[in-house]
């Protein structure tokens, strides 16, 4: 069962990694992705907004998809929201498996899907007080698309009927 959290607070990479391997001797590989806030173009802060009723469920479903595709012993997804300063971490993905290929591939899959299928929006704040909403990137969509369509049902324990998740398409055109 994946660990999924959405929080304002900072997180501790070492502690989260230790939690994934604690008490087990079957883990041979842990892969990690740490997304960090850059200070491009004089950025003073990044403000992360999300859709609380939907976010954790979306992340849990993406994690369940990774667990269905690769033989993982565990995985952790932590995404921060609120005001994030340059140099601070934004998102953490950890995947653990017996062997490295599953850990590395599933880690890349998780961050690619998270970028296009989880309801977060970034707003950039600049030193002069201006704000700008970050636009979605076509190469993020291409990176997510290379993993193909979803095969897994809803995350275990949700009680919802199995159904295929649709990609985020334009709401009208």
């Amino acid at each position, binding site marked *: 069962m994946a660990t999924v959290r959405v929080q304002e607070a900072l997180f501790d990479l070492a502690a989260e990694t230790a939690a994934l391997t604690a008490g087990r001797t079957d883990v041979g590989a842990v892969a990690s992705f740490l*997304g960090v806030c850059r200070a491009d173009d004089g950025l003073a802060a990044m403000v*992360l*907004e*999300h*859709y609380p*009723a*939907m976010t954790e*469920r979306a992340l849990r479903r993406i994690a369940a998809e990774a667990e269905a595709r690769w033989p993982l012993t565990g995985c952790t997804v932590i*995404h921060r929201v609120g005001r994030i300063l340059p140099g601070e971490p*934004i*998102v953490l993905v950890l995947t653990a498996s017996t062997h490295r290929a599953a850990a590395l591939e599933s880690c890349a899959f998780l*961050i690619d899907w*998270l*970028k*296009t*299928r*989880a*309801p*977060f*929006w*970034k*707003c950039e704040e600049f030193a002069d007080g201006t704000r700008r*909403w*970050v*636009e*979605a990137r076509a190469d*993020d969509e291409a990176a997510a698309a290379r993993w193909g369509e979803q095969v897994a049902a809803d995350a275990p324990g949700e009680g919802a009927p199995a159904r295929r*998740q*649709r*990609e*985020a*398409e*334009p*709401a*009208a*055109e």
Partner: protein
Amino acid sequence: MRVLYFAWLRQKIGLAEEEAAPPPDEVRDVAGLIRWLAARSPGHAAAFAEPRLVRAAVNQEFATPDTPVAPGDEVAFFPPVTGG
């Protein structure tokens, strides 16, 4: 029907959420709801001026223009997601 707005849609409309009661025989899906909402105020019109930039969720599931909507649903509108 509860309608939620996020990111720049929330700013253009000036509301994070509102109750809406579109006529069910006129508004059957997400695309129809967008057309109906866009006529509510200049802010709504501005937010929905470029529908290709708008994404939606119905009852916390990503939706498409032809996804049905009904009284009691929670419908959210937002730009393409930019997390990670």
